């Protein structure tokens, strides 16, 4: 069992050339930066806000803010990490506006370690995702990650979906490296635990209907985010 391979963003030197051209007023260079990172910003924003319209707004606002503040970008970090930091802040602001009754912060006091300790140890089917249609799978993944606190799912998305390093994630979120590592472990374990409900290997004749782990349609339709 080996390490996970991460997706990496494009070459850093190319990115820097584009940033420097954009700083000199070359809008086509800035547009190239938009083209390069718009999909990533949209994914991150939708993961945090869980709302497509908000995610669209975040994409526009984050790039516009980056454009307006480009002269202040110091070029000591990657442009992408700086952009992610802006996008995460915009997304959290949207979330706060939408859910004012709840405190939404990356620093929120997240429960003790106990909630992340593995309780369900049963193995999964060999290719669990193939038990579901693409649409069902997307529903399962979306609802499952939605159940995590924003501070957990943001760290998970930046590290494991977008492939930022632990240090880049810490810098983008203004967290310490140990805090990122701790949240990442707990996010991974909680997602694993919740997905297990759908992906566990089932013995024939155990009373469960069909070969599927959970009843996607019922669970997803319930919409309580408490899978």
């Amino acid at each position: 069992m080996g390490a996970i391979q991460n997706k990496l963003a494009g070459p850093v030197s190319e990115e820097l050339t584009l940033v420097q051209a954009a700083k000199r007023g070359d809008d086509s260079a800035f547009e190239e930066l938009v083209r390069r990172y718009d999909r990533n910003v949209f994914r991150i924003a939708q993961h945090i806000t869980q709302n497509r319209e908000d995610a669209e707004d975040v994409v526009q606002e984050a790039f516009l803010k980056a454009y307006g503040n480009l002269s202040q970008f110091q070029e000591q970090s990657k442009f992408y990490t700086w952009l992610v930091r802006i996008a995460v802040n915009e997304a959290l602001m949207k979330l706060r506006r939408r859910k004012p009754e709840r405190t939404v912060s990356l620093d929120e006091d997240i429960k003790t370690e106990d909630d992340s300790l593995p309780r369900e140890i049963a193995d999964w089917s060999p290719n669990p995702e193939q038990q579901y249609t693409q649409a069902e799978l997307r529903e399962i993944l979306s609802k499952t990650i939605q159940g995590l606190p924003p501070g957990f799912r943001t760290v998970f998305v930046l590290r494991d979906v977008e492939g930022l390093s632990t240090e880049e994630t810490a810098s983008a979120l203004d967290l310490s490296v140990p805090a990122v590592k701790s949240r990442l472990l707990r996010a991974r374990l909680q997602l694993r635990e919740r997905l297990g409900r759908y992906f566990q290997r089932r013995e024939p004749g155990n009373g469960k209907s069909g070969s599927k782990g959970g009843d996607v349609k019922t669970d997803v339709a319930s919409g309580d985010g408490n899978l």
Partner: protein
Amino acid sequence: MKCSEFLSELTSYLDGVLDEKTKVELENHLSWCHNCYVVCDTTKKTIEIYRDSQLYELPEDLRSRLRSAIMTKCQQQKRRGPQSV
């Protein structure tokens, strides 16, 4: 290595950043502890499923619209001159 120690090293192991000595101890633990092996394997699958899921892909038509709106607003901002955004 105990199960609790395995758990605290799991993230570093999956990220491939463990030192060689700890990695050997962890893999030795996995060779006989079935529960930890399953937790490790299913956590790795969890990450891979999310990474490969194409969840929240930006459709091309929306992408073009957003890009064009961004560039129009950027140009308006430039014409207005430097200001706090």
